[in-house]
């Protein structure tokens, strides 16, 4: 029933495999697992599905090994977690860093497998698994002293969101990673493995603990009521002229035009120097290798350090559930590790967290927009960038900044005014186009944005323009008809880059915005490979001082890299995200 059980080192060498080298799993789920989960800091949740397979895993942090079990998703094997834990304990006994083949483990594994299977098929009344208890949604769990109580509370919370109908459904809850229910391994480990290490830290929760979370000033975006589509008055033309107090000299195109705006070099092209964090000195690293290793890290040791780290992250405006998940995955990677005698727990937690943050914020793919534009130019098609986001985050302003930056690199730009809803949106873009001296394609108001975009792209191809920047109307993430309209625009025009514009002031809503946006786009996508958010543009960065957590929340939730950062309201205020400086600021 179990298709494969793999034991490999963190460096990538397979030490033992159940199926043997001959059976290559279709679709290589292991590589997908490493790439999408383990390296993204989502290692706290314990389940992953890839095609027809479901995977579960565990670490041995002291030895640097990973144990992964693969089985068919339709079979709900309840004993997998037990098996993994047992295998881990057994393998740790025979492991030797110098050895690379462990064939005799096959026999031992077979025994373990039978044992665990037998245990699982026995009626669970004996072991009083919290599993069946967890299945009753919302049933209050007794707060035990150990992590089990905390886990129960968490499951009870989660079951409010997803329906949990018993254990089997847990494997199916692994929808978009952000929503994945956080199941620790100890729920199963309670059954007859009392002595084993409890992985998850105690869910301190907002109830106890000196640091009262309600006191944190969360920069929450107030949830705005859904927007009703008000009919635009038909007689807007006369009122436009009445309200137009702009300088007559600015009016209209044609001869006598002012020259294009030139405000100097865009900040995208300026480099930032970063001070590096104090690395371990040569002295202490030498001592660490000489001195013998002491006690391994336990749950209770990591607890206080992680809690203070989580609070620190939250004061920097990182969304609460993101901070939680990050701390858990850092805990998962440190449990059982042996510390040198000269390192404090808090400093190793700090280093692990720093590494995880750098890893998450480092882009997964190239974000060299200029190169992609040149590639598109060779193909003869314009490079289309669509700006999406909720209301009022700065799409139109930052669109103009991106246009300014592109112009400085000798790229010809066309603007497409697909915000046909908001009053003044088209005029706003028209003004930018005039100041930057670039063509704009607009069809006024009350038009279907998807059709306008299509027309704009055709026009740009005709005029041999390199880039088309498409401005869309802001929309709330749970407004179904508007999201549908947006995905229609994207499906119809197949842009090269879908840029989600988010403001740095947003708090916990960032998670919701991004998940819903990318989910809706993926769900309603008609292309064979679903289009989703390709990149993030972070705006209003100059208003937040050091509360830079929104960047982390957004990147964590969507996996998309931050391609631009808007840090002011003039054309030059656009820069790149400096990963090191963000990490330093977050952990200060």
């Amino acid at each position, binding site marked *: 029933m179990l298709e494969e059980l*793999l034991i*490999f*080192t*963190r*460096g*990538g*060498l*397979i*030490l*033992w*495999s159940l199926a043997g*080298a001959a059976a290559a799993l279709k679709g290589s789920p*292991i*590589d997908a697992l*490493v*790439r999408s989960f*383990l*390296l*993204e800091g989502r290692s706290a949740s314990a389940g992953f599905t890839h095609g027809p397979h479901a995977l579960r895993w565990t670490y041995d942090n002291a*030895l*640097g090994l*990973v144990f992964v079990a693969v089985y068919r998703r339709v079979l709900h094997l309840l004993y997998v977690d037990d098996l993994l834990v047992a295998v881990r304990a057994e393998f740790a006994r025979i492991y030797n*860093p110098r050895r*690379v*083949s462990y064939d005799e483990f096959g026999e031992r594994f077979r025994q373990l497998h039978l044992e665990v299977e037998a245990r699982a098929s026995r009626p669970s009344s004996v072991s009083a698994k919290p599993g069946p208890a967890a299945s009753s949604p919302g049933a209050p769990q007794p707060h035990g002293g150990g992590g089990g109580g905390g886990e129960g509370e968490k499951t009870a919370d989660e079951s409010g969101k997803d329906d949990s109908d018993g254990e089997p459904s847990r494997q199916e809850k692994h929808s978009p990673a952000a929503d994945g229910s956080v199941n620790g391994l100890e729920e199963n480990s309670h059954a007859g493995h009392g002595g084993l290490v409890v992985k998850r830290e105690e869910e301190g929760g907002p109830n106890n603990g000196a640091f009262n979370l309600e006191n944190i000033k969360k920069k929450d975006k107030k949830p705005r009521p859904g927007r009703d589509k008000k009919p635009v008055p038909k007689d807007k033309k006369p009122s436009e002229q009445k309200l137009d107090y702009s300088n007559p000299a600015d009016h209209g195109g044609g001869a006598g035009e002012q020259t294009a705006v030139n405000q100097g070099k865009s900040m*995208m*092209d300026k*480099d*930032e*120097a970063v001070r590096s964090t104090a690395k371990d000195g*040569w002295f202490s*690293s*030498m001592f*660490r*290798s000489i001195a013998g290793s002491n006690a391994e890290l336990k749950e209770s040791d990591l607890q206080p350090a992680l809690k203070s780290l989580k609070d620190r992250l939250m004061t920097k405006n990182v969304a609460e559930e993101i901070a939680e998940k990050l701390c858990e995955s850092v805990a998962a990677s440190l449990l059982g590790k042996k510390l040198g005698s000269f390192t404090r727990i808090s400093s190793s937690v700090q280093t692990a967290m720093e590494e995880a943050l*750098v*890893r*998450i914020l*480092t*882009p*997964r*793919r*190239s*974000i*060299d*927009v*200029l*190169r992609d*534009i*040149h*590639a598109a130019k060779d193909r003869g098609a314009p490079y289309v960038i669509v700006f999406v986001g909720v209301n009022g985050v700065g799409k139109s302003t930052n669109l103009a900044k991106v246009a300014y930056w592109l112009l400085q*690199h000798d790229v010809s730009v066309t603007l497409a005014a697909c915000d046909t809803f908001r009053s003044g949106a088209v005029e706003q873009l028209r003004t930018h186009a005039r100041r930057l001296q670039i063509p704009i394609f607009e069809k006024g108001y009350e038009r279907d944005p998807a059709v306008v975009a299509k027309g704009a792209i055709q026009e740009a191809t005709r005029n041999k323009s390199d880039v088309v920047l498409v401005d869309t109307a802001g929309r709330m993430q749970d407004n179904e008809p508007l999201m549908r309209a947006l995905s229609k625009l994207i499906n119809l025009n197949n842009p090269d880059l879908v840029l989600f514009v988010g403001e740095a002031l947003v708090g916990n809503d960032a998670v919701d915005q991004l998940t819903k946006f990318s989910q809706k786009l993926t769900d309603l996508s008609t292309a064979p490979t679903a289009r989703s958010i390709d990149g993030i543009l972070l705006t209003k960065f100059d208003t937040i001082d050091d509360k830079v957590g929104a960047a982390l929340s957004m990147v964590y939730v969507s996996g998309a890299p931050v391609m631009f950062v808007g840090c002011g309201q003039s054309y030059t205020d656009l820069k*790149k*995200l*400096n*990963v*090191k400086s963000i990490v330093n600021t977050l952990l200060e």
Partner: protein
Amino acid sequence: ILILQTSCLKSSKSNTIVLSGLSGSGKTILFYQLRDGSSHQGTVTSMDPNNDTFVLHSELERKGKVKPVHVVDVPGHARLKPKLDEFLPRAAGVVFVVDAQDFLSSMQAAAEYLYDILTKATVVKKRIPVLIFCNKTDKVTAHSKEFIKKQLEKEVNKLRESRNAISSADITDEVELGVPGEAFNFSQCQNKVTVAEGAGLTGNVSAVEQFIREHVR
């Protein structure tokens, strides 16, 4: 397991060779071929660098004094790129592993990675030699090393023009590559760049071993 090396900085000639390249190009297999002469049971995507000092497996039988080599296999996954900066300054040579079979789809990413390595200040200043190793040539559909060399040169040339120093880790570290106005080719680099081919799985790694023996003395 990361064996913490306390590198003795007194010796001026380092014996470190860095294996780099995109994820899936065959670095870890190459590492184990060099060390043990076999690829064991296969590999998965690496999460941590493989770091070891050993005598090349093929040299074990050689009589006389054979100097051990410190080989580091840095994971190719984009998110682990900063790890390369830890090992590069101390390198005596860099092997850039390229998947010759799946080359065309990963050409751009490979060129970008190579560009990053070639423009690092430490690589240029210390003239660290680079070997572009075309791996997986045992497969029928693998491209030849001449083709790969030309394609990489073309891609790097494009990068030179459109480069915007997006990699945010160490932006001030970059150096101008090649001769402005002329098409780029590897002979314009201040450090020596050579191309070779072989196959990690079958053990055909003599080109790499030669490179190592040449630069680790």
